[in-house]
């Protein structure tokens, strides 16, 4: 009887530090599977964020750089401009990409830098213990919005995919979800499409992934998946928000 399932070559054979029920594990595996299937592991450079995924370089088996908070798109720009033959991706959370790093991701997308960004949206700052993020839902309680996010003083949650899709430069911008197998399958397709555009040297690509943070949401992993589907997905629409074919 042959092997029916195995760890991708791009994924290191080690235990991660992520919480039980954290969807980083799923996201990492999808990225690794796509890299394996496209045969690009030996020319890929990942750029790790500051966040729960700060140690992600321990979980992959190819070249990695560790960025300062929010600056991964700038580092990726540097790599891709001087070595356009390398496959470059950043992997960033809500704080890294949508808060401190908002300028870097907007300008990278606007210049059409040919790297791929995986954006983990779990509506909260995970690593530092659950503070409010630009993507936190209205009335959602976090450690820095203990009475719930007040949109009158903290604004509405930021829809990053739509924001980047509004730029005029061609790009592939897609939002997917990791809350159940059928969405995970679509997410993988989107990630593969993103890396394929990069292989074609076509455009900037970003895949936003609705993710859960059971620990900081104060829920069980299963309840967290439910909360993401009931509270986040109606607001954060899934689908391709921009493709380079758009006029």
């Amino acid at each position, binding site marked *: 009887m042959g092997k029916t399932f195995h760890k991708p070559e791009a994924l290191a054979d080690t235990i991660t530090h992520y919480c039980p029920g954290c969807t980083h594990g799923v996201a990492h595996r999808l990225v690794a599977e796509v890299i394996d299937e496209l045969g690009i*592991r*030996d*020319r*890929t*450079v990942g*750029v*790790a964020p500051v966040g729960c995924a*700060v*140690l992600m*370089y321990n979980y*992959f*088996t*190819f*070249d*990695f*750089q*560790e*960025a*300062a908070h929010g*600056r991964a798109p*700038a*580092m*990726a*720009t*540097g*790599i891709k*401009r*001087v*070595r356009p*033959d*390398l496959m470059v991706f950043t992997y960033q959370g809500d704080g890294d990409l949508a808060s401190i790093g908002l*300028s*870097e991701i907007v*300008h990278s997308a606007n210049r059409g830098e040919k790297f791929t960004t995986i954006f983990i949206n779990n509506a909260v700052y995970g690593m530092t213990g659950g503070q409010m993020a630009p993507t936190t839902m209205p009335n959602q309680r976090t450690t820095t919005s203990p009475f719930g996010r007040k949109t009158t003083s903290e604004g509405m949650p930021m829809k990053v995919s739509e924001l980047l899709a509004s730029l005029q430069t061609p790009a592939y911008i897609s939002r997917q979800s990791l809350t159940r197998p059928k969405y995970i399958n679509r997410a993988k397709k989107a990630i593969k499409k993103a890396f394929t555009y990069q292989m074609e040297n076509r455009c900037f690509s970003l895949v936003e992934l609705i993710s859960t943070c059971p620990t900081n949401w104060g829920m069980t992993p299963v309840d967290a998946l439910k909360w993401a589907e009931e509270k986040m997905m109606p607001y954060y629409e899934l689908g391709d928000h921009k493709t380079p074919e758009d006029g």
Partner: protein
Amino acid sequence: MTKVLMKGNEAIGEAAIRAGCLNYFAYPITPQTEVAEYLSRRMAEVDGVFLQGESEVAVSYMIFGASACGERVFTTSSSPGISLMSEGISYITAAECPAVFVNIMRGGPGLGGILPSQADYFQATKGGGHGDYKLLVMAPASVQEAVEMVMQAFALADKYRNPVMILGDGLIGQMMEPVEFPDHLKIQPTNKDDWATNGMSTRKGNTRNLVKTLYLNPEELNAHNLKLKAKYEQMAREEVRYEAYNFDGGYRLLIVSYGTMSRVCRTAVDMLKEEGLEIAMLRPKYLFPFPSGPIRDAATKDSCQAVLSVEMCMGQMVEDVERSVAGTSPVHWYGKCGGDVPTPEEVIEAVKKLVD
């Protein structure tokens, strides 16, 4: 070799290309924007990379990314922009990546002014960013010297796997002087396969490279810092560079001055010599490592009554001069801020107050 008349900023840009650096990321800021304007055209001619980033913060990380994947890279900026790059510089140094930074200093603090200054001495030599780190700091006093230092900087950055900073000022950047680009300063690319993230296929191997600065384990972080410290100690042994001016004859006072300011002091020394008053000048060419030993030796000469640090700021290098002299001689400071370069007459007046 032909000499050409070039503006300092443009010569600095050209020097990088002649040294074999074909990658430049930058953000406009007075008084060094001409480097970017020059290279936006020139890099295209040599098939190099030019990118105007969205901010100095972003630029410092583009430098980091490019350097970490093994490519030679540099940037130029001015004081407030270097402040923005300081975090990035801390990271790049921690990651042991080579890079060249040029600071064409302007008046500060804050938005300050756009005229020349020497007020970023502390920032450059003591670390504008956080943590224990040092940059090798070069201080050109002419456009020709700036050209040669830029070219040498890439070799030293590779030698130490450490960023190198060229500390110029608005005058060096803006003035035009004859320059030549010595062929012998063009360096061959260094093999960086043992550490750079240049892709496993580039290295034809199966081990990956990781460029990081996070060491959560205290013993590992301590060991890493000791490794960095050893580099700075090696620099202190091997890279002390200075010029001794008018050291023969019994000088009554020692001036310590660098960059543009040292040219004015040189004229003051010459003028005083005509009057019969012998003054010497020690001009540091590299500010880190600082020529402590040579300054102490020069200050302890019997005829020397005092040491005068002349700087276009409120007194920064004077603290290193005091430290070098270690109480064996009185140390004073003279300088001006705001952008008006002190005149030889003003320097002479300051000197005469200190000698009888």
